[in-house]
């Protein structure tokens, strides 16, 4: 008995010692990032490193604090967890460092596809991918006798069939809340119609085009089948509607897929009927009306080399392959980590990648256009002005902002 106890204790000690040896950091680490389950898991694992203090600040408002928290010297945050849109703001102000030498020294185990390269410099290490794609209720579609849509035109037909048979009053869902969400929905549709956000090689806006007008008209057609409060529904509210059984088809973030059936209070109908498919195309286009995203981590520029190295090691530990050995964690996202086996929830995002979905543009001035789109498009959807006028307003608002920031003369 006594012997057993000793054996157990020593094996535990060995285990703990092994983990500590695997990750030992020599300087402080402070992480700022968005707050959702996958990121929490990564940060939790990064904190297993010993040797120095590892702090974190995970909040949905991370974009409001990460830049200010990295501009000081020394920077408060030694790393920011970002996505393709938010890394741009950090690169614009030059607060993240190239990771080439750190990858050369400690990069073993990271696969090449994880490295975000900007003009020869590695600026971030990605650990998960995301894209919006179709989620639907196969039971309702079956009842209505319709096929799973692959285009937005089919989605409208499906919606009409479901509504006319009285199955669901507002069968279409979409995160159309005025602001960031609405602009993102436009971006998807606009790219689906083959639109280019900017005139080639310049910061001149290019959304007031045929593709832009078609995109807006399609969005307007979809809103006819949405909950009338759609302009206040962000992706949280839209998902709540879906889980309550009030939505039959929607284009939604892949990172939400695994929670649609596991969240508390989901009805059995939704649990059994939930299904996902790849992103939709629109207007006969080949490229899906969606964007591909990655989430990854950066290392601050204004910190000592020791802190940068410690940060790199801790964050690398956070995304080590052992992270996804836990099935619960593996389900949380489409991981870009070696050894990841796509779960059923991940097939929508992989389908998006296979179909050639474009990445969300990583341009210095894209954030300004996104903001302008989010502010100006609601007028059109409310029927207050024409599509042309709304898009002209977007370009005018963007131009004023881009002139201020020095992107346009």
């Amino acid at each position, binding site marked *: 008995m006594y012997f057993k106890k000793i054996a157990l204790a020593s094996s535990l000690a060995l285990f703990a010692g092994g983990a500590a040896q695997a990750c030992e950091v020599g300087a402080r680490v402070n992480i700022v990032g968005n707050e959702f389950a996958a990121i929490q898991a990564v940060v939790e694992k990064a904190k297993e490193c010993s040797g120095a203090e590892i702090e974190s600040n995970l909040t949905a408002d991370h*974009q*409001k604090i990460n*830049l200010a928290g990295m501009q000081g010297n020394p920077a408060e945050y030694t790393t920011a967890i970002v996505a*393709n*849109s938010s890394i*741009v*703001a950090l690169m*614009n102000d*030059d607060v993240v460092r190239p990771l080439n030498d750190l990858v050369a020294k400690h990069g073993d185990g990271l696969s090449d*596809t994880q*490295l*975000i*390269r*900007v*003009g*020869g410099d590695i600026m971030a290490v*990605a650990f998960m*991918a995301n894209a919006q794609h179709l989620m639907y209720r196969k039971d309702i579609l079956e009842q209505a006798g319709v096929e799973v849509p692959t285009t937005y035109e089919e989605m409208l037909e499906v919606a009409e069939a479901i509504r006319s048979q009285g199955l669901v009053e507002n069968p279409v869902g979409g995160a159309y809340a*005025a*602001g960031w969400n609405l602009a993102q929905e436009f971006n998807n549709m606009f790219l689906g119609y083959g639109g280019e956000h900017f005139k080639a*090689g310049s910061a001149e806006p290019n959304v007031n085009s045929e593709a832009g007008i078609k995109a807006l008209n399609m969005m307007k057609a979809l809103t006819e089948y949405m*909950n*009338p*409060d*759609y*302009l*206040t529904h*962000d992706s949280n509210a839209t998902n709540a509607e879906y889980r309550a059984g009030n939505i039959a088809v929607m284009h939604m973030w892949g990172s939400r897929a695994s929670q649609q059936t596991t969240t508390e209070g989901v009805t059995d109908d939704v649990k059994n009927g939930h299904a996902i498919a790849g992103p939709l195309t629109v207007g006969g286009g080949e490229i899906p009306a969606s964007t*591909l995203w*990655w989430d990854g981590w950066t290392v601050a520029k204004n910190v000592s080399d020791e802190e940068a190295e410690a940060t790199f090691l801790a964050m690398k530990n956070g995304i080590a392959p052992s992270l996804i050995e836990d099935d619960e964690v593996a389900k949380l996202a489409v991981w*870009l980590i070696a050894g990841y086996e796509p779960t059923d929830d991940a097939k929508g995002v992989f389908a998006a*990648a296979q179909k050639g*979905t*474009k*990445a969300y*543009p*990583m*341009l*210095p001035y*894209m*954030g*300004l256009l*996104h*903001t302008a789109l989010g*502010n100006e498009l*609601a*007028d059109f959807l*409310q029927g207050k*002005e024409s599509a042309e*006028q709304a898009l002209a307003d977007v370009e*005018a*608002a963007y131009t*004023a*902002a881009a*002139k*201020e*920031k*020095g*992107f346009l*003369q």
Partner: protein
Amino acid sequence: MRHKTFLWFFLPTGAAMILFIFMPIISVLMQSVYAPHEAVLEEVENCVPLVGCTIETKINQDATAALREAEPLGRFVGLEIYKDRGHLATEEVKAAWAESETWGEFREKLTNLPFYRAMGFTLTFIIFVTPLGIILGLAIALAVNSLHRHLKGLMIFFSLLPMIVTPLIGSLVLFWMIDSRGIIGSALVGLVGDPNFSLKASTGLMWVALIVYGIWHAAPFGFVVFYAGLQTLPKDQLESAQIDGATRWQQIRYVVIPHLMPLVTFVGLIQLMDNFKIFEPIVGFQASAHATSLSWIIYNDMSGETRQLSAASATSVLTILGVAILLSPVLVRTWHDFKGAK
């Protein structure tokens, strides 16, 4: 108090005001006339997972750093930012004036510009919320004052609740209630008899909801001040009015209200300033598609992926000017009193 005594008395406060109010305003003013340097852009190859490599634009940091070194404040743009479309939009207003044939058309074009749209809502909000908030506050104060003293404490607590509740939380609570699946929202759907009726989808109704929220939130402040004022009401005046056979309404109209008039001015001024800076309910109600304010514009400029510090500073300066204009009648009167006191 003699002016010299007053000066010494005021000095510590004055120093703190210069440090914490005046200097930041100067800093905001500076930021609003300087903009970031023109970005030096270059094309590079970006490689990202699942997509591969594409040619994208980025800022050349070395060249930009050199520019920053030369002029750390940024590029001086004078009043350019004040005049751009995001603010006073002088060019756009001129064009709208020239192209419009009727007032309605001009108004429509004007409210398509962010600054004027925000002002349109803000002024409507002020016009309704300020007087109605005061009247409701006064009514509550009179009602509570006439209660039995055992009930007063409890009623005061409940009357103050809207002010105790954080504005953002208060507006969120109301927002959920008016959702088409919320308690008020679904009751309205039942009343109207149209399943697609939505309060949040209509600009007019959203404005009504914001104004109702504003009054709900503003009334307790008026109530507290007026209730305190009622405690100083001379009993003999009221008694003589009663002996003269004045009704309750006449007592209020000819004795109570004149007594409270200086407080009404005070509450009115504070409310005017507060209502001009309306912000939390717009965020809480997610009402930005229907209603905006200058404070919301500042928030929006600062919360995008790319922050627009100069634009936000210019709007801040315009807010200060707006408050100054609203308060100017009182400032002028104070100045006259000061001159008279000499």
